[in-house]
């Protein structure tokens, strides 16, 4: 173990020495799980990368690798970027957590940032967005607009991130519509247009007239458009090409300010390991334009909800709330703590079905 360490650091010192000479630019690397043209998750991260380039101009060089499989291949891709002299590397998918840790331990002088994970090191930060705030807005609009009272939800993987979104959307839909019912399909993918389209069609056939998605492609939008009279929301990206119908609004991930700030910190030598979780207030979560397909009063309510979350006066997980099994979770006025939210593995009361296990 020790020998490994010695050898790698010797080799790295060698590698760094040769590259450091020619380097006055800050090199920022990005590891993407999907193609940059996915129109959703990776697309928005890449927009963040381009924003870094635009903001710093000649002072930075950015590199990226797309469609990196999660696992052993990711470790090589990240190592490779570190070897090529990257100063700061963003790994933008949950599945990159273990590989990022492994590489970060070998390159103590390179800064790493891992999106949506929970393991940090002195040279590895984690960052994520409070997407559940956006889900609250979606839930509200869905609850007000549905006629069949059935909301279809295309979920990706049963992880806390996704479960949180379902709960948040459900709580706010039920608040305005006690008759609401959620039908959830687990697609077990982040990006698979064919599967997502199938899921959307199946949900619509089961009577859903609102489709919420936690997958990244626009296929569900296309399926809803074909069915007609079904509303959807853009996921991760605005998906504005489907506005004003079926897409009536969207959750937009806006990574640009964060990426610029962290690059700046590396340049200034002030970069420190941190674990951040930002929401609508800091601009990491954006709500895409609410179209005219939404009645004006519903739109106003949605915007008010958004504003209340932005200024911190309202938290989407405020009691009284019970868990699905009927046990008490939050008392009247009590707000969920981040720890519980980060590890959320239960549905709130009223959602039928079980989280796959």
């Amino acid at each position, binding site marked *: 173990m020790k020998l490994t360490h010695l050898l790698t650091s010797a080799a790295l010192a060698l590698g760094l020495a040769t590259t450091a000479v020619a380097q006055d630019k800050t090199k920022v690397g990005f590891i993407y799980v999907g193609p940059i043209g996915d129109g959703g998750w990776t697309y928005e991260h890449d927009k963040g990368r381009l924003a870094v380039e635009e903001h710093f101009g000649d002072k930075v060089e950015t590199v*990226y690798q797309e469609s990196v499989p999660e*696992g052993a*291949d990711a470790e090589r891709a990240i190592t490779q970027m570190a070897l090529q002299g990257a100063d700061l590397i963003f790994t933008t998918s949950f599945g990159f957590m273990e590989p990022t840790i492994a590489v970060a331990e070998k390159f103590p002088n390179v800064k790493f940032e891992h999106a949506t994970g929970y393991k940090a090191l002195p040279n590895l930060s984690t960052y994520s967005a409070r997407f559940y705030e956006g889900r609250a807005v979606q839930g509200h609009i869905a609850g007000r607009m549905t006629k069949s009272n059935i909301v279809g939800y295309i979920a990706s993987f049963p992880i*806390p991130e996704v479960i949180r979104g379902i709960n948040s959307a459900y709580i706010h839909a039920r608040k305005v519509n006690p008759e609401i019912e959620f039908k959830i399909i687990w697609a077990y993918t982040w990006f698979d247009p064919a599967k997502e389209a199938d899921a959307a069609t199946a949900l619509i056939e089961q009577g859903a007239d609102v489709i919420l998605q936690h997958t990244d492609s626009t296929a569900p939008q296309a399926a809803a458009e074909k069915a007609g009279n079904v509303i959807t929301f853009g996921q991760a990206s605005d998906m504005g090409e489907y506005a004003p119908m079926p897409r009536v609004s969207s959750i937009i991930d806006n990574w640009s300010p964060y990426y610029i700030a962290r690059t700046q910190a590396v340049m200034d030598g002030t970069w420190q390991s941190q674990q951040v979780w930002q929401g609508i207030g800091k601009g990491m979560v954006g709500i895409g334009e609410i179209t005219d397909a939404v009645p004006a009063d519903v739109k106003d309510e949605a915007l008010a909800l958004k504003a209340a979350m932005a200024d911190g006066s309202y938290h989407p997980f405020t009691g009284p709330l019970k868990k699905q099994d009927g046990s008490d979770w939050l008392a009247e006025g009590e707000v969920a703590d981040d720890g519980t939210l980060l590890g959320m593995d239960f549905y709130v009361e009223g959602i039928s079905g079980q989280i796959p296990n």
Partner: protein
Amino acid sequence: MLKLEKRPQPSRLWTWVTPLLAVVITMLAGGALFAALGKDPVEAIATIFWQPLFGEFAFYYRPQLLIKGAPLILIAIGLSLGFRAGIWNIGAEGQYIVGALTGAGVGLAFYPAESVLIFPLMVLAGALGGWVWAMIPAVLKLRFGTNEILVSLMLVYVAEQLLAAMALGPMKNPDGMGFPGSRNLRQYDSAHNAELITGTGMHWGVVAAFIAVIFAYVLLTRHSLGYHIRLTGQAPRAARFAGVRPARLVLVCLGTAGALAGLAGMFEVSGPAGQVSIDFNVGYGFTAIIVAFLGRLHPLGILLAGLLMALTYIGGEIAQSNMGLPAAAIQLFQGMLLFFLLAVDVLTNYRIRFAAREVA
């Protein structure tokens, strides 16, 4: 006028020249593709083929070639036996997954006990898991005459669902805050398939791949079973007269392929990958089919083909991140390799004649 004339028997020379020719044509066509994308074709090709072997960071990439190539070789060797006998196991990916699950399952069951016996047990479990998964199409074929291509392929999707279920359920890391994925076996010494010699990339899976190559070579050239396999592929009728029992051959070929794929999965999950996760499998089982054919179904050929494939993967990644080439262009490049190989294969079985003489 060019005319194709069938050779009396496949040319031995061309059998070995065509793979090289295919690589050269792939380089040319790939270069044109990269040029069309606005990248320097020479630099791109050099990055893919030169950088991993002799570039500035070759000390890191060379071991990676073994890590990436070993599972491909291990699986392809198993597949090649069946392919030679006309038994088409397309589901190595599924056998790879199940082997990883059974292997990791044994390791995780013992956590946190430390013992030198745990790893050998995991190896056995991995091989057994892959073997069992391959026995499903084998037994169905023998009992009900089902098509092993379809059954083995469909079982890949079943295995993927099983993998997701395991990563989210029974094998989920209890300390993982509800996130999917098992414990990291690399942090559990008794179950860790570590490098045998630091910095070489040599782990037990690489050793197993080399052993498999040698065994397959001996089997095919010296053993009666190898003779039966070759005979069945070349002349099924003659094989039956020679006393080959097809049922036994199906069991042996599918079983061996399954066990080797299972081993590859087990070595991967306990080493380079480290944990059972939803996206653990990345297509080694399918790529190995290409490797098997690129290597002419010959053990030594497969060894070289596996390393070449690993080279295009690793070099391709370098080209992506250094030159900003899209991932799809690299995949296209790899696809061309098989495509051109199949295309120039015609030279093995046919001779090109110039027919102009007679006209004049």
